[in-house]
């Protein structure tokens, strides 16, 4: 088995520094990896990123993150990423990583994602350039997620986004804002690979559990949803008789495949 801890939307700043730390320091006994599903900061500043680095760096398990919309607010996602990386936090954006967990290999692919809505009620590539750009942004993101998922050579595959890949986990949010909370295109990408679990954040008023049309379990790990420092998901290893997860050219243990 592989135990995946996950939380999103922690919105770190100096005023909450240290809140998570007591629970995080117990992660070694309960999880093999910690996933951070975006909105790690309030405004996406370097100072706030340094708070994230202090809070979530130097933990007993590997930490993997995607950024969220808040982390882009100051137009400094590269600087934020650099600060997190300096603390040993791997930030994914259209790429993936494999990690050895005891006797198995976990693959995690991630993107921030974007909006657009869900099947039957979604934006289309039609009309003004601004609408086309909106849809194109999500399509590119979903394509990068799919390529990253398919590139990883691993036993268990997890997808991480900030935006939601299914509407199930948005239940409780106003219907009017669903197109700003996620896109079916992300779910389509997740279903194109042998994904075991998909985690996302962003939807503070949503619910934790959902499923893609292809049957992949989806978990909304936004902190206001899970109401604990993190949730832990125990993933069973596929039996030998099942099709192996690997379909592509992953670079091996503890590697990044960021050129997909």
């Amino acid at each position, binding site marked *: 088995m592989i*135990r995946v801890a996950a939380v999103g939307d*922690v*919105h*770190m700043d100096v*005023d*909450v520094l240290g*809140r*998570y730390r*007591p*629970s995080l320091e*117990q992660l070694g006994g*309960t*999880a093999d990896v910690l996933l951070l599903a975006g909105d790690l900061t*309030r*405004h996406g500043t370097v100072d706030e990123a340094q708070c994230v680095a202090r809070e979530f760096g130097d933990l007993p398990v590997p930490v993997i993150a995607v950024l969220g919309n*808040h982390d882009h*607010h100051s137009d400094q996602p590269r600087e934020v990423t650099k600060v997190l990386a300096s603390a040993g936090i791997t930030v994914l954006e259209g790429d993936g990583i494999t990690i050895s967990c005891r006797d198995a290999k976990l693959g995690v692919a991630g993107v921030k994602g974007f909006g657009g809505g869900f099947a039957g009620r979604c934006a289309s590539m039609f009309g003004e350039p601004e609408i086309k750009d909106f849809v194109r942004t999500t399509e590119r993101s979903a394509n990068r997620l799919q390529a990253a998922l398919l590139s990883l050579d691993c036993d268990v595959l997890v997808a991480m986004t900030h935006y939601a890949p299914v509407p199930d986990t948005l239940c409780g949010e106003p219907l009017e804002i669903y197109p700003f909370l996620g896109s079916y295109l992300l779910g389509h990408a997740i279903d194109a690979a042998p994904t*075991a*679990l998909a985690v996302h954040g962003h939807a*503070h*008023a949503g619910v934790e559990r959902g499923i893609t049309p292809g049957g992949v*379990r989806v*978990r909304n790990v936004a*902190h*206001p949803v*899970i*109401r*604990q*420092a*993190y*949730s*832990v*998901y*125990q*993933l*069973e290893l596929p039996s030998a008789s099942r099709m192996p997860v690997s379909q592509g050219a992953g670079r091996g243990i503890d590697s990044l495949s960021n050129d997909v």
Partner: protein
Amino acid sequence: MVSEARISDEYADAAVHRMLTEDGSICEQGIEVIRRDSLIVLRGQVESAARRDAIAARVAAEFPDRHVQNDIVVTTVAVPPEPEVIS
């Protein structure tokens, strides 16, 4: 027929929601603002008591003639009791 007052209320609601998101000292997107006759109720979750109180103060400044009932809670950071098994 929609009254002038009702239209005004809707614009005010929109302004408050945008203010809570776009004000750099607040920056919260998930706060529910419910208006009653002489009362404004705030609901949602934030990461600290200071953030909760700042939101209430900001909304109170926007509506000085109304009482603001602050039902925003600070999200806890406890260790989960047990993992969810996904098979």
